[in-house]
């Protein structure tokens, strides 16, 4: 029996295409459909060339194929505005939704922190937070699993070229959503997120700074060990995730300086912020597939 779960990608833009390229290497997820809304779009043409089926009439156009093609996972790389409807329609057919939009209909998922729980609970919709969240929340969690964190703050610096119009038009959504996930997933009692867009040419790699204030004096040895172990966990799906400096201890303040280099699949290597989203989304679906294959979870029944 084929252990791979079959997938549909909604949104044939840069993110969707990068995701498709990563998925074609996956041992657990098989891309079958790419869904768009414009038959002339570059993204759908690329998907056709890459050998998968395409649908240009939105999610509605692919619904009739879901059961027939045994689609089990969907990745939504469209927008928060349409995500809720996409998710409802596909969930009804027993498809697990991995949400790369800021809609946050389902619980936040940061793979090395809480993916295992979501997989065991068979959450039918998980949200991938934001690029800044994926890059930083593992580090907040690495500190908070050692000792309580009163305050966690992240600064994500991204190249101007890697920030699309959707993020620009609603940059507050980035700061609010990321700050919320620093608390809910990272385990900080209070969270703060800052995003800086830098237009330098050649474009700079994504850089992330993570500050934590621990409630009591930080256990330097335990935190350093925990941070380094967490970096290795993230490197399993984003090999270019690097601790450049730190953890630096200053009183109760613990600071880590990260760089995120992407794999350079469809997106350029400097766009580590986008790469970590697609890699985390794929990693998420893979864990559902692994758990289904070893019988830990049972996918929704189909006739």
């Amino acid at each position, binding site marked *: 029996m084929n252990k791979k779960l079959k997938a549909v990608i909604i949104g044939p833009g840069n993110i969707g295409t990068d995701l498709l390229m990563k998925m074609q290497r996956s041992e657990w997820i098989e891309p079958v459909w790419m869904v768009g809304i414009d038959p002339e779009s570059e993204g759908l043409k690329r998907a056709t060339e890459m050998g998968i089926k395409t649908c240009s009439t939105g999610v509605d156009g692919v619904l009739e194929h879901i059961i027939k093609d045994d689609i089990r996972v969907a990745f939504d790389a469209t927008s928060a505005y349409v995500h809720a409807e996409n998710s409802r329609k596909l969930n009804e057919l027993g498809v697990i939704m991995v949400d790369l939009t800021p809609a946050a209909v389902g619980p936040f998922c940061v793979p090395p922190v809480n993916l295992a729980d979501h997989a065991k609970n068979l959450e039918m919709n998980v949200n991938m937070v934001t690029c800044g969240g994926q890059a930083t929340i593992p580090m907040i969690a690495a500190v908070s699993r050692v000792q309580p964190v009163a305050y966690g703050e992240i600064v994500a610096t991204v190249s101007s070229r890697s920030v699309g119009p959707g993020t620009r038009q609603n940059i507050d959504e980035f700061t609010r959503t990321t700050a919320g996930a620093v608390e809910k997933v990272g385990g900080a009692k209070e969270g703060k997120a800052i995003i800086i867009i830098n237009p330098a040419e050649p474009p700079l790699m994504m850089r992330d*700074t993570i500050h934590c204030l621990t409630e009591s004096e930080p256990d330097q040895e335990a935190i350093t060990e925990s941070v380094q172990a967490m970096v290795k966990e993230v490197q399993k799906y984003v090999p270019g995730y690097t601790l450049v400096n730190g953890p*630096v201890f200053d009183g109760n303040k613990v600071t880590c300086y990260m760089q995120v280099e992407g794999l350079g699949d469809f997106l350029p290597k400097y766009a580590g912020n986008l790469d970590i989203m697609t890699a985390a989304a794929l990693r998420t679906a893979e864990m559902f597939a692994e758990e289904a294959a070893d019988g830990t979870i049972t996918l929704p029944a189909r006739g």
Partner: protein
Amino acid sequence: MNLQGKKVTLHDMSLRDGMHAKQHQISLDEAVSIATAMDEAGMPMIEVTHGDGLGGRSLNYGFPAHSDKEYLSAVVPKMKNAKISALLLPGIGTVDHLKMARDCGVSSIRVATHCTEADVSEQHIGMAAEMKMDTVGFLMMAHMVSPEKILEQAKLMVGYGANCIYATDSAGYMLPDDVTARIGLLRAELPPGVEIGFHGHHNLGMGIANSLAAIEAGASRIDGSVAGLGAGAGNTPLEVFCAVLDRMGVETGVDLYKIMDVAEDLVVPMMDQPIRVDRNALTLGYAGVYSSFLLFAERAEKKYGISARDILVELGRRGTVGGQEDMIEDLALTMAKEKGLI
């Protein structure tokens, strides 16, 4: 230069940009006494916010002595004539902060972005304009791109609803001709109803000269701070600027002796260090680096033994922009490792 008969609106920064120089530790009493004395002297606009704008409270930029809401609630009710403004940097503050400021009685919102990234300001400028506030688009580090690029970005902000556009010399890098080129193009191409402003830093000692060039080129709002209390070598010192404008026959509505007294009796005594063009402040202007990096680089020098000047020059070479204070310690650590110091 003949500026006879022109009118300009001066805008004091000592309780916002000055927060950088005070590491955001200005007390409520200090804020109220300085603002009240400036109001009494006829200063038409006064900015009161965390140095990095609304919501700037952070480990990255510094925890302030008081929240934006506390400062604004303390100062605004005491003003007889002066209008209070607040700065907002999208990516740091949000529209929630903007609404809070409005509810505190702030009448002018200045939405600041890096000079090439104006399209992150749409929701904030749009909301401020919708709330009928004086809405300013504030293009930072304006020395880094051409006047044409500044104009392109300014048009975006005007399109979102801004009624005033600033070319901001955040690094104190510009020379008068740079100011003339930018302000002149903005004035020539933007609708006449849109005001133009200039915000300078004194890192190359050009605060006064650049501000005069801005007025000549068509700016009607000029930022500065009493006694120059601001990041780097400070902003254009307003008491000096008032004296110069008085000599040149430019109307400001500010009483020169009174503003001189505010500078000397209230602001200078509360400075933690002299605000002057010292070696490191000069480096900011020379290398084109965001002025609030100054004290961070000096702290990194103390901690890691790498010269602040070397750090600042390298940050300039890398094209860092406003808000990247985190890169200072990161770079100092990397430089210290390379030198075998740690």
